[in-house]
């Protein structure tokens, strides 16, 4: 599939460009308040206190990439022929260690044999899926279950 991407493309805008640049470097950046240490995604003014103009006290910082499944589903129906090869797949809402929620696909999983509710609460870690060779290339963050020890 080198050089081809037939699904929807990310929309890189003024508020998320640095986030997408971080992914290209295999970093999961989150929006961080320099004053109080709170983390956000997507970009927001800090909720806990007054802000400097244009939230100047905040910036993008690398996060751990780890979290837990907050909610989950398994797509079993092909809505779109471009996704026919992906179905079935797990699409999860992850609560990152730092606090924010972010959604993505859960990979390295036998989605056909999995029930969505059973995924909730399980620890996950980010994985990076490179598509830099397509026009306006990008890297997608996805997640996989952290394998239990022992």
């Amino acid at each position, binding site marked *: 599939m080198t050089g081809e991407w037939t*699904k929807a493309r990310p929309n890189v805008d003024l508020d998320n460009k640095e986030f997408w640049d971080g992914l290209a470097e295999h970093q999961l950046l989150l929006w961080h308040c320099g004053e109080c240490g709170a983390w956000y995604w997507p970009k927001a003014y800090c909720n806990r206190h007054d802000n400097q103009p244009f939230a100047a006290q905040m910036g993008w910082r690398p996060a751990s990439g780890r979290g837990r499944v*907050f*909610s989950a589903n398994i797509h079993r129906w092909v809505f779109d022929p471009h996704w026919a090869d992906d179905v079935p797949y797990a699409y999860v*809402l992850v609560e990152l260690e730092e606090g924010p929620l972010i959604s*993505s696909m859960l990979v390295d999983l036998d989605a056909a044999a999995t029930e969505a509710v059973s995924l909730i609460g399980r620890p996950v870690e980010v994985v990076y899926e490179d598509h830099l060779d397509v026009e306006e290339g990008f890297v997608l963050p996805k997640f996989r279950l952290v394998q239990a020890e022992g």
Partner: protein
Amino acid sequence: MGNTRLAIVGLGSITGPQLGRSRRMLTSEAARLAIEDAGLSRQDIDGAVEMRAAPGGGDRSTFVDAFTRMLNLPVNFYFPIGRGGALASLGIAAAYSFLERGMANYVLVAGATDTRSRAEAAKLLGHRGRPHDREKEGYWGSPVGELRAVSHHSWMAARHMATYGTTSRQLGAIAVQIREWACKNPEAQMYGKHITVEDHQASPVIVDPYHLFDVAQVSDGACAFILTTEERARDAKQKPVQVLGQGFGDVTGSLWWEKLNYTHMAVEKARDLAFGQAGISLSDLDAAMLYDCFTAEVLFQLEDYGWCEKGEGGAFAESGAIGPGGSIPVNTGGGLLSAYHFDDCTGFVEAVRQLRGTAGERQLADAATVMFTSHGGELLSPGMCSIHATTVLGTGR
């Protein structure tokens, strides 16, 4: 809060497949029907609001020109309003201001949907295999699995199941009871198609944990209604239906920040405002048209409005409370789940019919106070930053 009360004095409703008719044409026709229903002429309409389901709340509509031009309505003002499935509720809220301030005598609120025809046209044209466009600015998820409303709405069902032990069979009980109501409504897309919980369980899993029967219909349709003041409505041709109270809530108020928006909806403030204005409590409602894009939405509202405790919605539904003969009739026309999906207009139209006494076989005896709810406007996924509206209608004082 003003003392002016609004009344609905005209109603136009179009349902069923509408292949070949533009939304503009459908809206114009619904408007024409509403004017006829009210016994008015188009010259009486001096204000217009168009209901357009702008996703999220920030998109501009994708088409221009308006039913006011097509139908030749001599209005002083016209503007579109809407947020996701919150259409009729916002139309009423907008019209209130103009009527209260005497800037119009009769405000016509109208809109249409052609989701079914567009889906069928896309199938006819075939999938050409062209790469998709960029996802919308400010949205998230389309490249990584977010494809349809069910792609994120299903998280609400899953989270509620994990938190409270709600089961798919309990969601099925909701689908079955609303289907029973649809089977009393010849306009319902699922009219004549009775289902059981076993049928629900056997229906294909679309996005686990949602089965096919957990998901709303795909429909064409149009709705128009005419609002005026209570006073002016005294001379109306049809029995006026009054707007007794309205309230709005938004998930960005607190639920989103507290990560509760996958088990709760922004009902509390909306309900308290609306019930306060209407001077009612929950037990005064004769029926409730609960926004039902998916079964879990109904379950959440049963809890959040207070018919049962949080977490008990499944058991409450299983008790048969919401179907024919139940303690709180819900979606007596079949709702979005079994009748047709035109956002909150589906529930609005059914509420008006129950109050006018024109609901046919499914008419509730002595219906005097009915609410319809509205939901919509995911700002981004996984934001689920949704509006909730409570509108209480009644046969008035």
